[in-house]
């Protein structure tokens, strides 16, 4: 049997599972939008600061849900896999002809599908509230490609945690840690306008800032190659590192002969 069929079967299960538990499918969609709405209402006046890159805070903030939604994907991928380990479902899969790589790829394909659906929803919300996409249709295509890569990379983080620990509780315990990366980033202000020095330094050292700025550049600036290179670069680097770690952890977890 082809790896493609195996990946498809696992991905289908991942998507079906998510769709059948609204409590897991809806918050990743709603919560980032709600946070964006609250921030836009409270921080709209910051667009009047000298040097703020746009006069629409919604346009500025629209990048955040893309990354926040992907962080939720991390948790979904991780907790789903950890639960499969705890319940013995991974043993069931181990007893089939499933290749190790197909399990990981299938699970992550499911995460990517949901990540792209989320991204499309955020794009439509942006259009509905009157945000202009400075990079045009081509920029939207690149944004969707970026959503694929970010979902894959963060999904790999979740998969690694799951295979390494085998515990859904541990994976969920990492959620606040990952959110710290989101909040100590340039999510609410351009880095050069952050007044508190340690915060600015932390945001500059934080890869999540560059991912947000990558999306933001496509929405409010057009084609900023440096922002794109940094955003894609960090997303791909995280993906490569954690896919490697997740593959190793999976090999240890599926100890079949």
């Amino acid at each position: 049997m082809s790896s493609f069929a195996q990946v498809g079967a696992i991905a289908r299960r991942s998507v079906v599972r998510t769709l059948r538990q609204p409590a897991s499918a809806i918050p990743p969609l709603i919560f980032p939008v709600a946070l964006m709405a609250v921030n836009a209402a409270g921080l709209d006046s910051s667009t009047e600061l000298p040097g703020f890159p746009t006069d629409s805070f919604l346009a500025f903030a629209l990048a955040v849900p893309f990354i926040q939604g992907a962080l939720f994907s991390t948790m979904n991928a991780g907790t789903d896999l950890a639960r499969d380990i705890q319940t013995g479902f991974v043993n069931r899969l181990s007893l089939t002809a499933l290749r190790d790589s197909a399990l990981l790829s299938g699970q992550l394909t499911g995460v990517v599908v949901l990540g792209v659906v989320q991204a499309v929803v955020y794009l439509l919300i942006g259009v509905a509230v009157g945000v202009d996409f400075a990079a045009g249709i081509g920029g939207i295509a690149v944004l969707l490609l970026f959503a694929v890569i970010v979902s894959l990379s963060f999904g790999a983080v979740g998969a690694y945690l799951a295979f390494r620990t085998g515990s859904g509780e541990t994976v969920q315990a990492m959620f606040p840690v990952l959110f710290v990366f989101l909040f100590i980033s340039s999510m609410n202000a351009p880095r050069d306008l952050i007044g508190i020095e340690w915060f600015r330094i932390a945001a500059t050292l934080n890869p999540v800032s560059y991912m947000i700025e990558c999306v933001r550049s496509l929405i409010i600036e057009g084609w900023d190659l440096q922002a794109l290179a940094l955003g894609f670069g960090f997303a791909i680097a995280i993906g490569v590192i954690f896919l490697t770690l997740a593959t190793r952890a999976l090999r240890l977890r599926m100890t079949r002969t």
Partner: protein
Amino acid sequence: MTDAAENGIEVEGLVREYRKGPRAVDGIDITVAPGEIYGFLGPNGAGKSTTVHVLTTLLPPTAGTARVAGYDVVKQGPKVRSVIGVALQEAALDPLLTGRDHLRLQSTLQGVPKHQRRARADELLHRVGLAEAADRKVQGYSGGMKRRLDLALALVHSPRILFLDEPTTGLDPQSRGAVWEEVSVMNREAGVTVFLTTQYLEEADVLADRVGIIDQGRIVAEGTPAELKAEIGRPSVHAIPREEKDRAAIAAFLSRYGDPLATTRDVAVRLRDGLGLADIVRAVDANGVDIVDLELRAPSLDDVFLAKTGRTLEGATEEAEAEQGPARS
């Protein structure tokens, strides 16, 4: 190479040690002929599930060899997996998927040709009595339904050898009977070799062609249920005193006719050779012993376990649970 090695199961000197624990399996030899139902009987913690995990390639053995359908479980894991069906102790089903979803996933991963998958799923769902519940999420299934779905999943690729790890533990008698019936039919009609672990004496007695009794990682007895019981040979007599205060006197009286047995509900002895129920009835009548019931029992597999280990199977299970909690068996 023997027929069993080619088509059944052949195990020699199998050992499995856990890093910080005792030897879960301590040098066992097993031969299961093609088409045979082999019952692997023992209390919790005896090494049954560990043996199944090794034979199904989920755990490498520490020492010894094992061949399943002619394939070495260490060197030819993928080949072994392609010819076996497995229902492990935990049904491990996804509560959010339906029974049909499970069969679709399993048949895809087991390489069942696409055009056969739907018909195969329908056939198996019908066979295990889940046709009506096929499109319901598993989270609404009863324990018996989950076990039957698990069995269907193990059969999806028409395996030659089926491993069932305590398939009826925790089931009500009706569900237990349904699983027994399905295992018998598969074995009889499709010639599937079955390796069945159980801690239920009745299950081994009813289903298995041959039984291996395992205790503390070692096989203590092996044979057909009839052979094993014949080793014990003598039946036992069980008497229920009318008055509890007479228990000691009745025990002393019965001990003249056989070796006392450790029981809690009644007073029992294993009869000496040549004695029968009629002898006891006559003696009870002649001596005016006041009892409400007197029963002759043929030797059971529990008697075999008792004779080989000095403990009853139930007692051994309770001991194991007291020592380590309801643990790996």
